[in-house]
């Protein structure tokens, strides 16, 4: 407001409108898209999880019956436990396998690291389902692995646990998600300035110390990014267990899927989905707290 009590000059007013118009035009379309097609359905499902629900029926109410039904069912509890064990195990294996690859690409390959990263990504560009079915050929009774082992005389009859098992789910999950672990860690390691490494060496750090005190802590944000990228979607995975998992590879994602598509119980499906989301958020919060990542971000 001007001191003379005059209205805001036209030019300034126009500038303000232009600024806001720019902002609105830039931010609104994606925001509205997200609102309509992501947050609104999410909110609807969240509300539904408290409705009275059964086979092909859904009645607005407020009840915790769906949550109770899930948590009191021992089969569901076992599947939930199995899901977390499988996914946590796969995550650990992914770090064990992926971190050295990322370190190798970022710090030990001089020239062709971009090419090698691309080789890592190529499989991702093949259709998801085709890749899973391809694994059936590799892991099956008369698949490549069994055939090779039998030919070499190492086994007399095909290994059964290779397909339709939790092992199969884990193998395929690792293959599926490896690039998403390698790339964020690779980027974090690649971003460590050479000078900092030299400063550490200069101050008496040997090669192991440099890894322990420089590379490892500075790559934690990358590791955390890959945790978010990988762990959470893996918890909801249903295609891989339903194709290669068999009964013992059954995961929570399959339960949710069947509630929506087969059992027609949307209320229960929503309740399980939100329970999963809640547990995941708690896990993320714990990871942030324990690793002290706020300090790095």
């Amino acid at each position, binding site marked *: 407001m001007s001191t003379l009590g005059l209205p805001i000059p036209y030019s300034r007013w126009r500038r303000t409108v232009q600024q806001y118009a720019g902002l609105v035009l830039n931010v609104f379309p994606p925001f509205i898209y997200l609102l309509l097609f992501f947050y609104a359905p999410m909110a609807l499902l969240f509300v539904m999880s408290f409705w009275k629900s059964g086979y092909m029926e859904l009645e607005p109410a407020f009840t915790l019956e769906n949550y109770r039904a899930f948590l009191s069912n021992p089969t569901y509890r076992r599947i939930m436990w199995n899901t977390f064990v499988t996914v946590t195990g796969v995550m650990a294996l992914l770090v064990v396998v992926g971190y050295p690859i990322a370190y190798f690409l970022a710090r030990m390959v001089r020239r062709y690291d971009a090419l090698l990263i691309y080789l890592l990504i190529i499989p991702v560009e093949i259709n998801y389902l085709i890749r899973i079915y391809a694994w059936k050929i590799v892991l099956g009774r008369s698949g490549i692995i069994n055939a090779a082992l039998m030919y070499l005389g190492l086994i007399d009859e095909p290994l059964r646990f290779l397909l339709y098992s939790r092992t199969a789910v884990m193998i395929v999950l690792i293959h599926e998600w490896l690039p998403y672990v390698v790339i964020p860690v690779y980027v974090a390691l690649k971003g460590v300035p050479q*000078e900092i490494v*030299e400063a550490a060496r*200069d*101050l008496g*750090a040997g090669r192991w110390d440099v890894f322990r*005190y420089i590379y490892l802590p500075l790559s934690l944000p990358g590791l955390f990014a890959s945790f978010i990228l990988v762990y959470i979607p893996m918890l909801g995975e249903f295609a891989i267990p339903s194709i290669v998992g068999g009964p013992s590879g059954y995961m929570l994602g399959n339960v949710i899927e069947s509630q929506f598509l087969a059992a027609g119980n949307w209320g229960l499906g929503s309740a399980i989905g939100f329970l999963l989301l809640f547990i995941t958020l708690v896990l993320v919060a714990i990871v942030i707290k324990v690793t002290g990542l706020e300090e*790095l971000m």
Partner: protein
Amino acid sequence: MTIREGLQHGKENGLAVEHLVKRFGPLVAVDDVSFSVAPGEFFSLLGPSGSGKTTTLRIIGGLTVPDEGEVYLGGERITYWPPEKRDVNIVFQNYALFPHLTVFENVAFGPRRRGWPERKIREEVTRFLKMVHLEGYEGKYPRQLSGGEKQRVALIRALIMHPKVLLLDEPLGALDLKIRQELQLELIRIQEEVGITFIYVTHDQGEALTMADRIAVMNRGKILQIGDPKTIYEQPVNRFVAHFIGNTNFFEGQVVKVEGGMALVDVPGLAQIWGVPVGEVRAGLPASVSVRPEKMYISRHPPKGGSFNVLQGIVEDMIYTGVSTEFIVRLPTGQQVRVFAQNISKDAEIWKITWDEKVWVYWRPDRSLVFVE
């Protein structure tokens, strides 16, 4: 002490490098560099960017392995020792602080790798933080510090290791003038306090002149001259050093004759100028005469008596800086010369000089140097 004796001395007690060569592809970054530094000395490697000074420093620090030559420290040959084994520490140009560690942890990084007891580490870190006036900064992260504060942390992070030699790679290069001057004085004070040998790389000749006991001037991988600041300034060994250190006026011409320890140079269209010959000056060779602005007189009248080199010109500009006035005088050839006059008295004759006035510029022949090359 001869150079050979000096090297021997440096080899046994301080630091010495001998015939260092480092090539990067076709580029010879360091080309047969030798010098020695006495314990406790403040030694500066001075040169333009790309002159090989930083590579030389990195070789001493163990971050770069030389293709040829040796590095000696305290009587030991350390040429191929890894950096973590050397009793030498570096203050990096861009500080290279550990971004994920606090100020305390940054400074304690070296001592922890050496396995000092935690109590001693706490005491020493506190003592060094106090030395650079950073008490209370223990818990801050590098990103919360100003440039000057980061530089102080980088300095004590290296100093706390009590190295035999501290290598500083343009440590003040990224700071603004005022903080730079402040830290220059602080560095000199700290160096005297801790008594550690400093090797200070800079491209700022003023900084080298102010701070160093001795300076090595480098260009294109070679050391051109080693000496104390006064020698480097007053007796440069070639045109490059004269040009690089301080301000100077050059007159290009041809040597007419050399007699009585002086050389006469004919500057076409201007005059014949006497100067002290430097190196192999012979009649007929092309030559540059160098004379520094503060060695010249400026007057509205020609000099009376005495033997002077005398030039005439027109005052093109006058820059008053308080302690002195800089005159820019245009000569008949179009060349400009700079002349400094000290502001001794406000009534001096010199103050009557104004723009576009015809003036005489003159100096004693032994104040100018003649270079051939």
